[in-house]
């Protein structure tokens, strides 16, 4: 295992000790629990999360300043939620001095770029108090998800209780208890194109990053990455927020995370390289070389 998992100080399998959180969390409720703890302890004044939007399963980024609001945002919405769009407003209109933000690996990249290169993010760099990253293989436009759920799975968006991607399949669970699964072969073509040049699977630049892969059902794999993340995670554990197990004692464990990370990075690296010869003596732009 090399750079594909990024730098980290610790990796564990964990889940929240709060049953209420677990009722609707996507996996081990790590995101909601850690933000709730940080909010109650004054480590953050609020957190940018992806809450329910105007249509079923369409996320709307918003700034949660209460535990109830955090609870309303539990669960994964497999389509784009521009969480970072609130990063400056959080410190302005909302007046937060200590901002939490959850996001996909690309959103963590955006946050760190904005801290080192704040072109338009005035007075933001030192106000990011907790950045939680979620693992991400790919994301979808809302219309893609709608098409997958309604056309391919034959389920109305209103009746979906949960969506999940795992064990090589796209799962749709309905409020009435039905389960429909689609092979990822079907979902691939609906992916957001921008995801195909993405070179990060496990949110290497977050303070703490988490996802389901590697841990048993209902549990999450957690990487503790920065000094800040380590500090907050340590306090949350001491406060009894999480049950944990050493990652080398759970199945399928870190090896699977590593394998998927490598698969994603290698595939997308090829896409990035392919862009150089996309046309006849004409390249598509490579953001990793220059603007």
């Amino acid at each position, binding site marked *: 295992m090399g750079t594909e998992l990024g730098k980290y100080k610790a990796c564990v399998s964990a889940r929240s000790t709060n049953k209420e959180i677990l009722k609707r969390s996507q996996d081990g409720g790590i995101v909601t629990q850690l933000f709730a703890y940080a909010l109650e302890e004054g480590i953050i004044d609020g957190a940018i999360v992806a809450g329910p939007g105007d249509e079923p399963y369409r996320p709307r980024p918003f700034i949660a300043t209460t535990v109830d609001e955090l609870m309303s945002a539990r669960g994964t919405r497999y389509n*784009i939620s521009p969480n970072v769009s609130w990063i400056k407003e959080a410190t302005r209109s909302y007046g937060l001095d200590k901002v939490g933000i959850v996001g996909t690996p690309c959103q963590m*990249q955006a946050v760190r770029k904005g801290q080192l290169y704040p072109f338009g993010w005035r007075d933001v760099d030192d106000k990011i108090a907790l950045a939680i990253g979620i693992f991400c293989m790919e994301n979808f436009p809302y219309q893609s998800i709608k098409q997958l759920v309604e056309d391919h799975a034959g389920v109305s968006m209103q009746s979906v209780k949960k969506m999940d991607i795992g064990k090589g399949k796209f799962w749709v669970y309905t409020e009435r208890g039905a389960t429909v699964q689609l092979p990822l072969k079907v979902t691939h073509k609906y992916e*957001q*194109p921008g995801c195909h040049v993405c070179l990060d699977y496990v949110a290497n630049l977050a303070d703490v990053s988490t996802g389901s892969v590697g841990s048993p059902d209902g549990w999450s794999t957690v990487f503790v990455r*920065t000094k800040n993340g380590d500090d907050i995670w340590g306090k949350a554990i001491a406060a009894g927020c999480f049950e944990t197990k050493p990652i080398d004692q759970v199945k399928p464990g870190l090896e699977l995370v590593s394998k998927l990370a490598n698969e994603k990075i290698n595939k997308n690296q090829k896409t990035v390289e392919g862009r150089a010869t996309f046309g006849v003596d004409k390249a598509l*732009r490579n953001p990793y070389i220059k603007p």
Partner: protein
Amino acid sequence: MATADVEKKAEITKKEEKPVAEKITVGHVHMSGCTGCLVSLADNYDGLLTILDKYADLVYGLTLADVRHIPKMDVALVEGSVCIQDKISVEEIRETREKAAVVVAVGGCACYGNITRFSRGGQPNQPQHESFLPVGDLIKVDVYIPGCAPCPQLIRNVCVMAYLLLKGNQEQQELAKKYLTPLMQLADRGTEACGCDLMIDVVNQGLCMGCGSCAAACPVRAITHEYGKPNVNREMCIKCGACYAQCPRSFFNFDVITEFEGISELINGALQ
């Protein structure tokens, strides 16, 4: 301009200067801008005082230093676009290029024209002053700091990095070079910016992933997201260039950004 050139020029100025304190010399050159960029620099408060105390001597600046003519300097921070009907401005910008080792265009007006792109003249008391060009249309610019106003923190970072590039040890020089590279590449990219760049160079190129950075960067709230993709209100856009520069899919230099923790500590440490 390649980093090697900057170094070469820096060396030349170094030789010509008397070897006093290990500070760099910096000037603020005011073209047609609103002084918001200068205020942004000043908004570093204690940080600015530390910079002036430890790293940089301010050798030129209309409101700050009592010097009439543009002197030799390591770094010129140029604010504002150049009115080509104003002889003095044109002369001064030419002189700036001659006298400064590194020319930094600070803010949207210097980089891209920004709000001055909309000028058609007719303002008292010089109604004939109607044409304003980004600095890069008249001289070679080395480093860009887009934005309106540019963020105090980015100006600060560039000042610290410029110091490390010119006076640091080898490791610091390497870091500074890596850090400044995308800002030099932005300078090479051209003198036009618009919210449309998000469409042309990100979405049209199949690179947008819907993070929202662009909307957060826009000073006039011209950008919203529709189903995760940026939607620019072009009537509102003032052409400052912040959104595209902020976008992680305009540039993303892993070698620098992956080290965000260490670099932030270094910059904060330098300003203690």
